[in-house]
């Protein structure tokens, strides 16, 4: 089982990436991880989601927003985090269910889409794409975060 802590970097003021160092168009990843039923259960309990809603044709699906726990790990393949980085926006597009009762090998890749400075704040937008290893698309997540400097 892959836990997010295994694939994300720790926030560090010395080695974290500053706004100026993000490169538009640069790709990040790939990140490979395995989503296992036990971790999905842990996520459901921690996030307080209503798991009974995620049922497709009689089979339980994992709440796909569990992928957000692996989101920054994809970015950290290339760009280490700064402390006090704050989430600003998120777009999640779901393409196929992830089943709650089986392990799923996933590969995610990212790309820096945009940078913007407004009113003294620094924003970076990037997208992560998630696929089953060797298989179909699962989801895209486009994230905008604010970097302190």
């Amino acid at each position, binding site marked *: 089982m892959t836990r997010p*802590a295994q694939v994300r970097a720790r926030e560090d003021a010395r080695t974290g990436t500053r706004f100026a160092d993000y490169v538009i168009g640069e790709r990040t990843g790939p990140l490979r991880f395995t989503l296992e039923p036990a971790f999905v259960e842990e*996520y459901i309990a*921690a996030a307080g989601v*209503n798991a009974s*809603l995620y*049922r497709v044709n009689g089979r339980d699906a994992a*709440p*796909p927003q569990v992928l*957000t726990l692996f989101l920054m790990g994809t970015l950290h393949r290339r760009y280490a985090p700064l402390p006090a980085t704050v989430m600003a926006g998120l777009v999640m597009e779901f393409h196929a269910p992830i089943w709650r009762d089986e392990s799923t090998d996933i590969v995610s890749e990212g790309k820096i889409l945009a940078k913007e400075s407004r009113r003294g704040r620094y924003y970076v937008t990037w997208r992560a794409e998630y696929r089953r290893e060797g298989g179909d698309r699962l989801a895209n997540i486009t994230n905008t975060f604010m970097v302190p400097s």
Partner: protein
Amino acid sequence: MNAATYTVSLDVTQERIDRYGRANGDAEQMHYDPIYARARGFRGTIAHGTMLAAPLVDLALRRYGPAFLSGGRIAIKWTAPVCAGEVQVATIDEAGRIEAVNDSLPRRPVTVRGETTLGGPRS
């Protein structure tokens, strides 16, 4: 697909923040250290943005059903934090718009705004 509105409430306790943080694997002290958080201008430790977003997908599932898992889109912007000890209440309307508020503060500030769709153009 349902035309009704739906509401979900999230109690943001420090215990929940800690539990989410263990799953999430982050070490950002704004979530765990109230002195650190207050020094940065927050009322206290703050919930992870993705934790606040998680029940909003529940709202989309109630609105659109399980088809959302194979063709749904949810777009959100965080507008204000929710701190430990506070409650977020979120609603989705007939048009798929989501608004979440901090139900623990006098003016109930909006914490998340969002839109949901099923089908349509995909990236």
